[in-house]
């Protein structure tokens, strides 16, 4: 391989890693809810997009910076997640395994319709002065939004990981995910722990929505496509592992940019799903899964 090909590869590799960071950021909340409560939260993508719309509303109404608006978005989504789990999902779990799934689907439809009514079906975007244009990383220039998303993903992943490993509540969440009955018998209120897990997952989803909105334009139905991508990320990375989710995002991002580089943009999503398929066939628990 000559130098020219290598130099040509550096851009798709760097772009793939950074894009993978954004994918990981989107998938972290889904991974947590899936890993702890075994709930497939099909409303995850829509909750993420709704956070982008929330930041958009604050930005257009009062000119509030999207990242700054997270000081309101994070607590709001945290509270929303806590309420959804405590008052809706926990009851649904008592009915059957399918009930929470159907409720999540209902939440998804409600959010999409609300976004259409409030903000119309046309595409919207978040902007900030510091997010415009590119930034040179030496070998190649990348959009600032990609780099910001990657940094945000890294920070959120590390904070979540340390929280789960070190704090009492974090350990209780992990324990409840490994053996619910065992957790109850050591005195963990699993209902409360689940509500916190959902709340924390939603807080990360609020962050993901803002960085997504800064990077890509969005419509009320954008969440659906990114739910599928987030699924791919946690299938590759392994359920419930925060580091695994991060690596899974990068693998998926790299697959997309490299297959796009060699075969053209039309092929890239095919390869993304192909690699998900291969991981499912060869290592169904994911790269970092148990």
């Amino acid at each position, binding site marked *: 391989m000559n130098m020219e090909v290598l130099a040509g590869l550096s851009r798709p590799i760097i772009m793939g890693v950074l894009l993978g960071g954004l994918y990981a950021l989107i998938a972290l909340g889904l991974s947590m809810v899936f890993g702890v409560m075994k709930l497939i939260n099909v409303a995850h993508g829509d909750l993420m997009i709704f956070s982008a719309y929330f930041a958009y509303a604050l930005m257009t109404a009062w000119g509030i910076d999207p990242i700054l608006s997270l000081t309101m978005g994070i607590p709001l989504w945290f509270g929303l997640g806590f309420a959804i789990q405590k008052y809706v999902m926990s009851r649904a779990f008592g009915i059957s395994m399918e009930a929470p799934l159907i409720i999540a689907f209902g939440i998804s439809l409600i959010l999409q319709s609300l976004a259409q009514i409030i903000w119309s079906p046309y595409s919207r975007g978040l902007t900030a002065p510091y997010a415009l244009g590119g930034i040179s990383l030496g070998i190649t220039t990348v959009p600032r939004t990609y780099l910001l998303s990657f940094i945000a993903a890294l920070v959120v992943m590390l904070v979540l990981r340390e929280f789960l490993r070190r704090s009492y509540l974090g*350990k209780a969440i*992990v324990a409840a995910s490994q*053996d619910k*009955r065992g957790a*109850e018998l*050591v*005195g963990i209120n699993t209902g409360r722990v689940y509500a916190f897990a959902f709340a924390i997952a939603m807080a990360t989803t609020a962050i993901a929505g803002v960085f997504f909105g800064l990077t890509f334009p969005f419509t009320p139905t954008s969440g659906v496509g990114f739910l599928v991508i987030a699924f791919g990320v946690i299938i590759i990375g392994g359920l419930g592992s925060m580091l695994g989710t991060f690596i899974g995002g990068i693998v998926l991002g790299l697959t997309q940019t490299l297959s796009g580089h060699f075969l053209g943009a039309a092929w890239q999503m095919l390869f993304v799903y192909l690699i998900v398929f291969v991981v499912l066939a060869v290592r169904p628990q994911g790269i970092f899964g148990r």
Partner: protein
Amino acid sequence: MEKDSQETFSDALLRISNVDAFYGTFQALWDVSLVVKPGEIVALIGSNASGKSTLINTISGVIHPARGTIEFDGRDISTLDPFQIVTLGISQVPEGRRIFPEMTVSDNLILGSYNRQARPNRDQNLKRVYEHFPILEERKNQLAKTLSGGEQQMLAIGRGLMSDPKLMLFDEISLGLAPKVTEELYKAVREIRAKGITILLVEQNVRRSLKEADRAYIIKAGHIVLSKNAAECQEEEIRQAYFGVCS
């Protein structure tokens, strides 16, 4: 049916009165009454699916009784959830151990003192557990799933001790373990009792139960069919209770 007069003791730590309990639509306990006094070791003996584990889980609040009451320390706990019951001072070491396999030994133990009452005494209790089971201290940074069966059982018992219990419920702690390991576990059980913790234990091995316990209850198809001082239990009586030729 033979019952002695101990049912009427007023100094009971745990008093179960006329409890019915269901698994779905299946009635697993029928009019069960049982008393555990402070400082005792009481054995609950019965064959497979006789309702032993159901009774243990009903005490722990995993299952709520459909009828009857469970009193602990003079307080009705029949409607409380497991985490509340742990806080009051009942700790269950469940069948199959139910440790957290992907967490370290020390994290498993630390989680044992999750309830607010036990948290302030965490370090002291951890020291106590390591005294009972020095092997756990040696392996404190290992993942729980890498322990041997006997060590996992020690971990489950240690985790149960971490919640500062007044009463411990042991469900089949020797199941599938070698005699030597079982001996070691029961040595720990005796040490635990010596420290003033009351014990209700479920054990398949009848001889072992009677050897360790002060009193025994025999449960058959969800009914208590016999309760006696362990030393007075005749093998013939137990065999009859076990295999259905009721006296």
